[in-house]
């Protein structure tokens, strides 16, 4: 479902003497439907960078990034937009929402974007918010005033609302209590069971062991630093 081959990436900092910072070289991996693969490696190894290149919010320098039949490294913006609506979900570390939109709508939105009905979106949103222990009295409020942990759970609910065939998870269990962490692991297991291909970053080794089938050490793709 996800197949990456020979991907490289450098950042060029034009306003800092045009410094070129190579951060990745020869990255290759593939993830089959129903499989969950963990990206591991030291801080700064490039885990988030690789994930962002797959989602298309970082440009790949070279290589192939196939998600389904779309090469994200070469696709037009509108092809990536369609891919993100229908095929590829991403739970980032922070929730970004339009102010004033009620939590229920924030969570239901991906269902509508993928062509689902308003009823289906709302039903799914209710189910996920309840499972993630967001008190019902908060559902009609905008999540902008929620606590950090609550926002994170809203973000996760939103990420799992539509049944994406491919999912990217950037530290979905960070700073959650044991109960909610268990719920997130269940959601991941369910997504695998329905055939989703998942790539995750988990700093928590226990979480990783519970849901991941394999680990890929991203430091293997870190370029040798020029002296």
């Amino acid at each position, binding site marked *: 479902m996800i197949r990456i081959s020979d991907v490289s990436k450098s*950042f*060029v*900092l*034009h*306003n800092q003497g045009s410094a070129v910072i190579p951060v990745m070289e020869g990255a290759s991996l593939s993830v089959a439907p129903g499989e969950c693969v963990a990206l591991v490696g030291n801080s700064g190894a490039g885990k988030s960078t690789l994930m*962002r290149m797959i989602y*298309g*919010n*970082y*440009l790949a320098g070279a290589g192939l990034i196939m998600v389904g039949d779309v090469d994200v490294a070469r696709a037009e*913006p*509108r092809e*990536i*937009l369609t891919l993100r609506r229908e095929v590829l979900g991403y739970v980032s570390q922070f929730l*970004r*929402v*339009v*102010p*004033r*939109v009620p939590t229920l709508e924030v969570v239901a939105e991906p269902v*509508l974007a993928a062509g689902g009905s308003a009823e289906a979106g709302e039903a799914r949103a209710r189910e996920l918010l309840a499972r993630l222990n967001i008190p019902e009295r908060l559902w009609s409020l905008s999540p902008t005033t929620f606590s950090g942990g609550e926002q994170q759970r809203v973000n996760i609910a939103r990420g799992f609302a539509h049944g994406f065939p491919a999912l990217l998870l950037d530290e979905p269990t960070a700073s959650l209590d044991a109960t909610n962490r268990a719920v997130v692991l269940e959601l991941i297991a369910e997504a695998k069971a329905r055939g989703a291909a998942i790539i995750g970053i988990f700093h928590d080794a226990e979480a990783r062991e519970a849901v991941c089938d394999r680990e890929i050490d991203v430091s293997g793709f870190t370029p040798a630093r020029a002296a």
Partner: protein
Amino acid sequence: MTPLLSVQGVTKHYGARLGCGNVNFDLWPGEVMGIVGESGSGKSTLLSCLSGQLAPDAGKVVFDTRAEGPRDVLTMSEPERRMLARTDWAFVHQNARDGLRMGVSAGGNVGERLMAVGARNYADIRAQAIDWLGRVEITEDRVDDRPRAFSGGMQQRLQIARNLVTGPRLVFMDEPTGGLDVSVQARLLDLLRGLVREMGLSAVIVTHDLAVVRLLADRLMVMKGGHVVETGLTDQVLDDPQHGYTQLLVSSVLQV
């Protein structure tokens, strides 16, 4: 699928000074394109050229018309272009006063657009006007007030209602949230986002506010000195800017 709007080599000079130079892009149905760039970079000039308000020196602006498919807006007759401006297009001005008739009531401002496309039944027009004022959160008891009696945010919402009542397919907006305080901006954003989704609108939005762009625009175009220096998916341009100017722009604001 055909692009709703295809912009090819649009160039406009003011005397010797460049307004905007060789701008190219396709806008697809349902897409929102953001345009950012420093003051004087040519954003308003470009928007005026695209919406037929200003004749560029060179280039094509091809719009996919309902009746006849893709047509170059710039070679259309003036009446044809005016008809488009009244039906399929909407233009939300930065200054609400430029987009409203200040001497006409709020209901009249909305109704006038309907009459321009042939609506004649007074009761229907009034009902539709009230419906649209409601959608932009202006209550029925204000329908007979002049825009002068409205706050800046209300005027801006009235302008949006006036523009969207005829069910346009393409909306141009020049700094739609400029000069409004942040809570009013947030309401306007929510409103625009909802309308874009429900009506399947396409939009070209000029703004200097990167947070607005992140929430509203699918794609982003960055202008400097009349030229487009970078384009791409909005989050890609903001998170991994390639051009030095964009890097400067993104790093000079607080996290968005």
